[in-house]
């Protein structure tokens, strides 16, 4: 077993256990923490795949901004101490997990069947190439994403804006 395989197993196990922890914890703060751990180990996997730019973006966007927002909202609404029935009932739960396992088996079957023996062997893509592609072939989608962000910004302001008190 070489170093890459050991790293893959470590990061993979951490991200899987983090993901399971997300859906098992009752307290949303703990779920958020587990999700952060998952995102981190995924950043590790990206580096393993020779994609340092994506790994850095993963940490900046997900761990640095999105999860902070989650924590902010959980703390703002004080959901950490909220005790309500947060799960569905027993029979439905069993069915949901059964469906999930079925889906996983299907996915694993496809993964092994479709890829054959084409290993991850080619040399990694350079960050420069991503930038060039982003500003040539994908220029229109790139501009559209900026419009999406703008729309989101306006939407949020419209959503949370306090109505002017008519005095």
């Amino acid at each position, binding site marked *: 077993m070489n170093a890459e395989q050991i790293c893959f197993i470590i990061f993979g196990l951490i991200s899987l256990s983090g993901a399971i922890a997300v859906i098992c914890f009752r307290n949303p703060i703990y779920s958020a*923490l587990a999700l952060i751990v998952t995102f981190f180990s995924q950043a590790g996997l990206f580096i393993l795949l020779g994609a340092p*730019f994506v790994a850095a973006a993963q940490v*900046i966007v997900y761990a*640095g901004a999105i999860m*902070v927002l989650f*924590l*902010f909202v959980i*703390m703002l609404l004080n959901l950490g101490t909220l005790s309500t029935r947060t799960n569905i009932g027993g029979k439905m739960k069993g069915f949901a997990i059964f469906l999930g396992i079925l889906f996983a088996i299907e996915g694993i079957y496809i993964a092994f069947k479709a890829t054959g023996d084409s290993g991850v062997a080619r040399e990694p893509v350079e960050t420069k190439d991503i930038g060039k592609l982003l500003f040539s072939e994908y220029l229109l989608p790139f501009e559209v994403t900026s419009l999406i962000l703008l729309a989101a910004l306006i939407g949020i302001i419209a959503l949370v804006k306090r109505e002017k008190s008519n005095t």
Partner: protein
Amino acid sequence: MDSVLLLSTIVKIVVVAHLLIIGVMVMIWAERRVSGWMQDRLGPNRVGPQGLLQPIADGIKFLFKEELIPNHVDKPIYVLAPALLLVPAMITVAVVPFGNSIEIAGREIFLQIADINIGILYVLAITSLGVYGVVLGAWASNNKYSLLGGLRSSAQMISYELTLGLSIIGVLMLSSSLSLRDIAAEQGAYPWKWNFLIHFPAFLAFTTAMFAETNRLPFDLAEAEQELVAGYHTEYSSMKFAMFFMAEYMNMIVGSAVTVSLFLGGWHFFGLENLGGPVLSGLISFGIFFIKTAIFLFVFIWVRWTLPRFRYDGLMNLGWKFLLPVALSSVVVTGILWVITNGNRLAIGIGNVVAAFIVICIVGGLLVMNKPPEPAAPEISDLNALERNTTG
């Protein structure tokens, strides 16, 4: 990986980690002495010569204090939080180039722990994690003042991170590299070619955002002694508090070092770094970098005793309505002028300043125009009536 490279890397890691911790101790001493000097008093001067051993005495005191964990805290997160703040502060330094190269036994050894090609993105990624220590520590303390501090801190960090990221894009455009070593090397030996002149508004925005990210005084709303007791670390004592304390100073040191490499020419100073032999020149370059960082750290202390704390809405206004547009204008202007003038640094420098001035004028004008009319001051008789109502 050959053994020489491995050995030199280990030596560098050990040296830098210790320099960082000693630097924190010196900073704690310097802050108290400089504060004393600025306020025309003495500051600590009893322990050791000039009070230099004061931080060590403080450290020993922290170590021997009782480790207190209040009953009402959320224990796992409460214990984890100080480490979550300290670790990002320490590992950011790994990509900072603290000097040119030293030649030992015919091999060139760069004075930098790891020259990774996404250097500055790594710095942004790791510094953005520091907020978890503050937020989680605040939440786990289960104390409303701490929680308020944590909420303020998370909103502040998210707001100023945008400025932090946007203001360096102009720098990255000109150096066309993300590696901190390349950025520092590209600026050359002379101060008028350094990035802080070419991107002057961006430099100011970056520095301000960095003050906010390190929770230093004009922006220390997360701890604000006068309103929130001590904010997020109210419930912490002994070594856990010391870890919060160390992390703050470590963030300052690393932030200054990053600013020096990005904007202030790194280890360059009028070609002084090229004097001497292969070993001596490396040491000189390290010395230059060290002095620049020290001067920047002095500015931190200076600002602390110059500017009063912002009010919370003022903080948000500054971040979103002034710093962010200025940083954005720097990106646009640098990009356009780089294409038009074929990378003429003088034109870009002037264009940046003009654009920032125009942006500030526009924003300021809009703010003045949209200002809601001040409510008329109540008459004295009204006030008396109000008082009667509330007391009776």
